[in-house]
């Protein structure tokens, strides 16, 4: 089984113009992403599953159940960030493929239909918006919403979708119907170092962090670095630096266990070594597992930043870029995952997810859960150094299979509403 994991991981990694130290580059709504989906689809068709592609680009393979029940689902995504890793999303798809294989080969049909899903465009690296395929499925993004989005080259998201053969006119019909879904479980690499540090093999996710994102524009005065004494400067970059450090202090204070603030990008202009920066634009990401604290922290940081700018005589403006609440995942699904790990004698940890995932969106459709498997190399992800040991993916896949079988044995649809 470990060999099968490795083989599939390598197969997907090869669908990329970059490799080795340059990692995997398979951006959303490109031919490469569709090629990866086709590998999945072909694997599932060979197993006898019915396969279709949704207008959003999600690929779904269904194994019929023996009863007229809502579906159980599992899956993840196959797109990557530029020069990303080989495991983010792919691990969950590989787990889904092997789960389908094992169930088909067992000869025992599930009571519920089983749907194996590859979501399109989970990464926000190209278009800014993450989880596009699952957002459409959950009804959180409509065709009108997507029409507003362009990539860094000015290419419209809808045109990118058309260019890979997707029928964008049918996007608004691609919303998943809650009555068709009993539950969904996604296996994913942790993208952090908690599991590996603790020596745990399985993470059962309680809540997926939300995020409030904004940009801050600081307007100072561009001037000659030699001719302008320090006390006469209006330096936008030093104001930006003070704001970055204030953000770090805020996230580290004792009211914020679980808050993460990152200034991931600072654009300084005019960008000359001999010119005092007249303008700086900061991009700030405030993540939290606490919905109220997340918003309060974002507002507190904005107020602090405004105060810093005012004290320095620097102009200040802010722009809201995005705001998503944390998503609690139903404890019933989590307990099924925990029981599956326990039954196999695996050390597990009940934990939050700092990163966003497709499951965050799908939890709006049906009861949803996540299984984390350990990330190595200090939890590095979205980089070529991203590593999860094949044996850990195989272990997670066994827990996934057990959890799906457990849910399949439950009365199911009567519980579905209670789960939501």
């Amino acid at each position, binding site marked *: 089984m470990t060999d099968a994991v490795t083989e599939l991981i390598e197969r997907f990694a090869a669908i990329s113009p970059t490799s080795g130290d340059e990692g995997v580059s398979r951006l959303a709504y490109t031919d490469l992403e569709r090629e990866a989906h086709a590998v999945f689809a072909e694997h599932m068709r060979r197993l006898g599953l019915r396969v279709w592609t949704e207008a959003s680009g999600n690929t779904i393979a269904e194994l019929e159940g023996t009863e007229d029940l809502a579906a159980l689902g599992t899956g993840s995504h196959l797109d990557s960030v530029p020069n990303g890793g080989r495991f983010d999303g792919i691990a969950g798809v590989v787990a889904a493929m092997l789960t389908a294989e094992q169930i088909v080969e067992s000869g025992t049909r599930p009571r519920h239909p089983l749907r194996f899903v590859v979501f399109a465009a989970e990464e926000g690296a190209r278009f800014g918006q993450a989880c596009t395929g699952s957002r459409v499925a959950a009804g959180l993004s409509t065709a009108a919403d997507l029409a507003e989005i362009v990539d860094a080259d000015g290419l419209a998201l809808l045109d990118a979708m058309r260019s890979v053969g997707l029928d964008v006119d049918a996007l608004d019909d691609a919303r998943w119907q809650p009555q068709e879904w009993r539950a969904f479980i996604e296996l994913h690499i942790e993208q952090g170092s908690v599991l590996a540090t603790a020596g745990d093999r399985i993470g059962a996710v309680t*809540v997926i962090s939300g995020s*409030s994102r*904004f940009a801050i*524009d600081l*307007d100072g005065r561009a001037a000659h670095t030699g001719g302008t004494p320090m006390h006469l400067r209006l330096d936008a970059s030093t104001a930006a630096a003070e704001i970055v450090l204030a953000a770090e202090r805020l996230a580290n204070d004792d009211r914020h266990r679980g808050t993460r603030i990152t200034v991931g990008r600072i654009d300084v202009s005019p960008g000359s070594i001999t010119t005092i920066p007249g303008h700086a634009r900061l991009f700030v990401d405030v993540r939290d*597992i*606490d*919905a*109220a*604290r*997340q*918003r309060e922290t*974002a*507002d507190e940081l*904005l*107020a602090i930043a*405004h105060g810093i700018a*005012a004290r320095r005589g*620097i*102009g*200040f*403006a*802010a*722009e*809201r870029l995005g*705001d998503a*609440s*944390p*998503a*609690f*995942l*139903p*404890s*019933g*699904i989590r*307990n099924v995952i925990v029981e599956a790990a326990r039954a196999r004698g695996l050390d597990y940890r009940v934990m939050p997810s700092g990163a966003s995932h497709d499951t965050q969106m799908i*939890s709006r459709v049906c*009861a949803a859960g996540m299984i984390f498997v350990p990330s190595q190399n200090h939890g590095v992800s979205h980089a070529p150094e991203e590593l999860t040991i094949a044996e850990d993916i195989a272990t997670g896949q066994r827990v996934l299979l057990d959890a799906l079988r457990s849910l399949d044995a439950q009365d199911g649809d009567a519980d579905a509403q*209670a*789960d*939501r």
Partner: protein
Amino acid sequence: MHREEASVSFAQQRAAADAELDVDVAALADGLSREGLELAVVSTPSILRRLAARIAPRVEPGTDRVCASGVSDAALAIAVSLHTGVAAAIFDDEGAALSEIHAGERVVVVSVRGGARASELVAALGAEGHEQVELVVALEADGQAAEHAQGQTAGQA
């Protein structure tokens, strides 16, 4: 160019925040007993904090104590106390005060989901002559926000 603009805010509309809280509580409630849910709610800070903030407006100016009995309701009372700055008073299952409370004080009884014990505490406090004893329930039986506090005044309890 000098701009002064700090109007961006992430504060949520009350209705949206309440709706999200109900969804989160429902996720937490999945498969749990009544008591299990009460304990889960008060041991999950992001939910307890929001529940406390949601019912805090029912603690009107002039209230002297936020009262509760039982583990879960006591935790809620302390959260409301932290949010409002009004002192908490905790009672045991038999209704005996475990912390300071004085005759004639205006009190509010808080409870995660209400029930006989909370109602009995309201009755006992009313009988002892406390003013405007009011029961504020955070969640209805189905886990949704309780829209109406169950009020009782001294002499009626």
